[in-house]
């Protein structure tokens, strides 16, 4: 039997979570946990190290890798530098081979595997490919694997067919220190709970082009049998004493019959649950009164609804297959049934005009009016490697696409892909960034402001004044001369919340310097 060390690398700028009262711990690293569970089930020795949460991750990885056959990394574009640094350590100090999987290698397997620090890259779901690698199969025969030949050429094997996810054991949380992740805020009820994720399905049948599924080909929707899901949730309650669960999957609500079976099954457990639901599912025969009632009875606290844009032109462009009216309807249904929806928006798509952006702000204002208890979020669009939108963004911005894995670690790409410091594929970049700030502030509803004021009167009041100004701007659609935005940055600095500045508002030069320091050590 083989041994593998599975690593969840940290993100850029290198981020290690330190327990505090203000922020929840990071999510359980579900990717490596799913793979680790399957490999353990097959009798292999698995060690999971989460570099997002463990300060001494590098030492632990080297120690565990000494007698391991492979060290696997679950890599996103934002964790390339961390993965490179750790892979270098593994190569220098041990004999273990490095395997990279995850979203970035899935989108660019050839480029990833070409790097000297990467022995193998897995594209698509890696459960069986890594199992075969660990069992000593010939790499040339392992589907969904990219490998190097003796003369250094990279060969990308074809993608394997999807396998029955009922074959995989339920997530084995004993592979991680679950207590480090379990205490989280149930934002809908503003209280701390013990919450773990459940993954009862994989894939999503919808075709939204901004989502990574459409660029990785992982759309086919596969489900675990309802009885299994119910048993798994019961086990989480019994073994880990959870009082809430999160359906942490791409789309829980696709098959109504299955959703009903699962919810009927967990009704008596007295748990709270959260998930995600598309706005167009709110209709007769899908998420209707009957299902909403059952959701309430089974402990649903709220769920995320992706609105994305208020412009039908943009929604058609990204193939969302939802219209703004459906979002309004979904949100009002949530309010009627006393659920707290978390509505998310995206700005900064290519070809998005000022008119389109204003339509998004208008939709945002409408949904806040319809459901004053909602939690909102607004993000800036960043293209996933591969897919039409990615090609379009690089074509419009005339930026050269990164030609190697190392090029992705250049400050200009990381800054663009992670911090969205600029939107070069849209000529209204600066204006959109202003709208992003003001619309984001608009989403702080009175309910939330009251909570902040109660927590810290002075800071809460100060913050509320910036929110009021943002509301005024959204009301009159005026987003130029962002003096108050700049003042807010200064206020954040004075109040010592520089971590927010680093992530969202910090100077580009400063971030570039940070990346360069990271790279120098890699």
């Amino acid at each position: 039997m083989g041994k593998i060390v599975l690593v969840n690398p940290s993100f850029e700028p290198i981020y290690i979570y330190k327990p505090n009262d203000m922020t929840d711990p990071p999510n359980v690293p579900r990717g490596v946990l799913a793979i680790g569970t399957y490999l353990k089930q097959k009798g292999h020795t698995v060690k999971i190290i989460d570099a997002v949460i463990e300060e001494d991750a590098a030492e632990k990885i080297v120690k565990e890798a000494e007698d391991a056959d492979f060290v696997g990394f679950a890599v996103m574009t934002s964790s390339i530098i961390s993965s490179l640094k750790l892979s270098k350590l593994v190569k220098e100090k041990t004999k273990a081979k490095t395997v990279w999987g995850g979203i970035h290698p899935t989108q660019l397997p050839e480029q990833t595997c070409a790097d000297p620090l990467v022995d193998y890259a897995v594209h698509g779901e890696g459960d069986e490919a890594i199992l075969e690698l660990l069992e000593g199969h010939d790499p040339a025969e392992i589907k969904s694997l990219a490998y190097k030949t003796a003369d250094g050429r990279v060969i990308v094997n074809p993608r394997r067919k999807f396998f029955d996810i009922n074959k995989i054991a339920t997530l084995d949380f004993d592979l991680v220190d679950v207590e480090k992740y379990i205490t989280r805020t149930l934002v809908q009820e503003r209280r701390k709970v013990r919450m773990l994720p459940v993954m009862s399905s994989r894939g999503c049948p919808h075709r939204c082009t901004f989502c990574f599924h459409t660029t990785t080909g992982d759309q086919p929707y596969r489900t675990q049998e309802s009885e299994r899901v119910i048993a798994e949730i019961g086990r989480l309650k019994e073994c880990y004493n959870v009082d809430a669960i999160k359906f942490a999957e791409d789309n829980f609500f696709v098959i109504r019959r299955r959703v009903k079976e699962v919810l009927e099954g967990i009704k008596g457990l007295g748990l709270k649950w959260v998930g995600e639901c598309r706005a167009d599912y709110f209709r007769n025969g899908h998420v209707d009164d009957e299902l909403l009632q059952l959701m309430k009875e089974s402990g649903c606290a709220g769920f995320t609804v992706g609105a994305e844009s208020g412009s039908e032109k943009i929604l058609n462009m990204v193939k969302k297959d939802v219209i703004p009216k459906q979002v309004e309807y979904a949100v009002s249904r949530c309010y009627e049934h006393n659920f707290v929806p978390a509505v998310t928006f995206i700005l900064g798509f290519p070809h998005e005009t000022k008119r389109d952006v204003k339509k998004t702000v208008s939709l945002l204002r409408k949904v806040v009016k319809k459901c004053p208890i909602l939690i909102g979020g607004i993000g800036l669009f960043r293209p996933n490697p591969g897919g039409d939108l990615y090609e379009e963004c690089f074509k419009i911005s005339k930026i050269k696409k990164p030609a190697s894995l190392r090029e992705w670690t250049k400050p200009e790409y990381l800054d663009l892909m992670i911090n969205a410091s600029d939107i070069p594929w849209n000529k209204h970049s600066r204006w959109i960034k202003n709208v992003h700030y003001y619309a984001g502030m608009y989403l702080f509803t009175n309910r939330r402001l009251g909570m902040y004021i109660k927590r810290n009167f002075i800071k809460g009041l100060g913050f509320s004044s910036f929110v009021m100004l943002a509301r005024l701007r959204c009301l009159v659609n005026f987003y130029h001369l962002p003096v108050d935005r700049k003042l807010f940055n200064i206020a954040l600095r004075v109040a010592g919340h520089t971590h927010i500045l680093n992530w969202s508002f910090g100077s580009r030069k400063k971030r570039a310097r940070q990346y360069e320091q990271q790279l120098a050590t890699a």
Partner: protein
Amino acid sequence: MAKYKVVLDRKACIGAFTCALTHPEEKIWEMDEVNGKVNLTLTGEELKKTPEQHEVIIEDKKMALKVADTGQVCPVFAIKVIDLETGKDLVR
């Protein structure tokens, strides 16, 4: 034995392919290479097959429910599964 009429409105179909990606293992739907819409691959008593509409009668209840699942995620409501005994559309 109960019978179910599966109706595909090909005029309404926009080729989003969500139906084919739900219960993909059953291969109920396939992409029409010519017009980018979907084709119904179920075997049964064929009632109608025109460029606008395809109607097939099936007797397998489990399969009828699965087809209804695929119809529920269609963004343009192009799929119906009618229970011929009750007249009820299983998609709605």
